[in-house]
């Protein structure tokens, strides 16, 4: 971690202190963009979402408590909601109106960098879409582990279930995914990682 890392207990003040916000942004912006690129394939939309997520973070930060999870997990939680909002809006063909419109801030270089990241996450997005075939609570667990690379313990903690329960659900989801994924090589690549994950924590 870099020199800009901020203490978990300071996160509650990022909505009031610009320097803390600065440090928080630098620490999490890269991961957040990757998180979004695993789900969204349009650079403009990713840019909008980055802005929306940070805006939501600064306005709710005062309620953040380190005891409830790491700042990264908290931010990803916000991001997950924003992605879901965006999908609902898209379904209703509404455009987002936000105080800061991320896409307006994209210049050519930033755009290219965003596209590279999105391209790199192509396979993961395919997986993310395949997760649609799972029941909601299993999907979220699988998403955290297979898409976001959380450990089972971390994912279980975020969802408020026991790690043992999480393992059982993951096994079940794996079987379902194998059925639903058209591309066997995609399943293999996901599954290799999963197997290691499940074995390690068993």
């Amino acid at each position, binding site marked *: *971690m*870099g020199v*800009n*890392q901020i203490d978990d207990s300071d996160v509650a003040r*990022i*909505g*009031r*202190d*610009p320097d803390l*916000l*600065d440090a928080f*942004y*630098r*620490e*999490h*912006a*890269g*991961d957040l963009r*990757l998180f979004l690129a695993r789900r969204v394939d349009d650079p403009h939309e990713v*840019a909008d979402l*980055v*802005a*929306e997520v*940070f*805006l*939501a973070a*600064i*306005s*709710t930060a005062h309620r953040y408590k380190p005891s409830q999870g*790491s*700042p*990264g*997990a908290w931010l*990803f939680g916000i991001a997950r909601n924003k992605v879901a909002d965006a999908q609902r*809006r898209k379904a209703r063909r*509404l*455009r*987002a*109106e*936000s*105080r*800061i*419109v*991320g896409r*307006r*801030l*994209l*210049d050519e*270089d*930033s755009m290219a*960098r*965003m596209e590279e990241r999105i391209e790199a996450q192509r396979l993961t997005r395919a997986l993310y879409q395949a997760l649609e075939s799972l029941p909601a609570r299993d999907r979220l667990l699988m998403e*955290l582990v297979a898409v*976001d*690379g*959380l*450990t089972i313990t*971390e994912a279980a903690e975020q969802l408020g279930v026991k790690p043992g329960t999480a393992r059982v659900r993951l096994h079940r989801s794996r079987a379902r995914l194998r059925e639903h994924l058209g591309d066997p090589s995609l399943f293999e690549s996901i599954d290799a990682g999963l197997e290691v994950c499940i074995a390690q924590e068993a």
Partner: protein
Amino acid sequence: MSTGTQEPLDNFDIALLAQLRSEVTKEPARRVRRGALSLGGVAAASAAAIVGVTVFGSSAPAAAYAVDRGTNGDITITIHRLSDAAGLEKQLASYGIKAHVSYQAARESQAPGDAAGGVDLSPMGQGDVGGSVITGQASAGSASNGSLDRNAGGGACGDPSHPAFTANLGSNDYVITIPKASPLQHADSELSITTTGDVSKTLAGLSVDYTVDGQHCGMGSLSVGAPGLR
């Protein structure tokens, strides 16, 4: 989960971070729920100036609106609640402004037996996810944040470099300012204030529009943006 990968900031990051920083230095009371403006995309389709507002039915202030003329000659209309449209029309007439005010959308959705009457304008919400939008601002008669189509009209609509009005969503009200030089204070003009959107979903917009000599003036897009983008 978080790898803590710190990459060098690119121009996008720098621009966004600058705006976020300015956001957190603003007083919290000026912030508005993000959701408050989500109607914008829809509302932008039709009027000179539209600002999305959340609408709440409780704790209404005593007066639904106020009209004042400042020492500089500007007229300020402050709308606290979407009620007594006719009263506002009358009061504006006493200031020499012909106006059409209609809160039809709000009235339709008003809960039966709501003694307070009208709908409270409160972009602050009730401690919800909150916070990203400070003001929605729009103006007609001058280009703001993008498109402004103007009917060809021999200058009847006024000097393009001076807005005929500006509209701002404040912390709990909606403020329309009509500058002294605005055609709305001089020419044969009409100001129109109407509600748009679906108030029953506690989300609506106010649309402000004007005509001069019977000619429709200014079609501005919704102007809700960050500082520096306007």
